[in-house]
């Protein structure tokens, strides 16, 4: 990019003077604790699956993730998750629960455009990239692992 013009620089200094400072540290602490709270719930669900069903620690992860996403989808539908998101920011978006929120909030937003073109077409507007890059990176990692095993490195 080329250098900024004189007007742009002037505007930037003006902007900086008036801009409210973001409470970064406070936001981080909030996100840390709310995110940690979600993880406690996730751990409880993991133990629930280990304890009452035939899942080991190895295999209990999958149903736990599914349950957490399902819960966050319900909470988004009831309008509770928006408030959590407002308060906690990244703490509610980074765990898998953020995925459920992204799917359902997009679906609700485009509900007025009809079921096929609205809900169906826009549901994965945000979450689609998660699936795409998740699947693709898993594919690449698996490919590397297969090659390494073939060559006898691991």
């Amino acid at each position, binding site marked *: 990019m080329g250098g900024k013009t004189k007007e742009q620089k002037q505007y930037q200094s003006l902007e900086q003077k008036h801009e409210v400072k973001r409470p970064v540290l406070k936001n981080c602490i909030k996100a840390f604790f709310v995110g940690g709270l979600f993880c406690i719930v996730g751990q409880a669900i993991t133990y629930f699956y280990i304890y*009452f069903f*035939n899942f*080991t620690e*190895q295999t209990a992860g999958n149903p736990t993730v599914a349950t957490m996403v399902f819960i966050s989808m319900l909470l988004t539908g009831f309008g509770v998750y928006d408030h959590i998101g407002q308060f906690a920011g990244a703490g509610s978006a980074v765990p898998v629960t953020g995925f459920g929120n992204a799917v359902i909030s997009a679906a609700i937003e485009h509900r007025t455009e009809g079921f096929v073109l609205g809900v169906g077409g826009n549901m994965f507007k945000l979450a689609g990239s998660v699936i795409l890059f998740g699947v693709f990176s898993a594919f690449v990692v698996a490919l590397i692992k297969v090659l390494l095993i073939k060559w006898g490195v691991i």
Partner: protein
Amino acid sequence: MRKILITYFLVIVTLLCACNDDEPKGNGIALLKTTNPAPLSLEKNTKKELDLIGAIEQDVESFKELYDVSVLKGKEDILVAYKVRHMQRFHMKKIEKKIKKLLKEKYPEENFIVSSDYKIFLEAVELEENLKDPNYSTEKAEKRLQEIIKLKKELT
């Protein structure tokens, strides 16, 4: 309206929780508490057998990274389940490797299944609990042990 829906959902979930009849009996607390189960053999408990599994339990318990060791001897396999101390859980793989190596060197003719999984431990304790009942047949116990071993080998 919304409140009613939420309450309705919660009630349904709570009620559905009862639709599950394979919950563990009695020993349920083993997930949280140190139980220190005694080593047991599914076959006849001769002096030689008891000495062998007792020695195995002692050997595994000598690792200070873990607590609560359960040893179960079946017809061919010996199931060793243990809990790892919380801060040592980062080294879980290393600990498992160390235990496997030690057991293989010390008892080369036995076949060991080593697991640090809570579920395996829970199942082992439940099986021991069942074995106390004299009506619980050896075949049934052996079958259950094989099921646990299968569960251990299962991956995602």
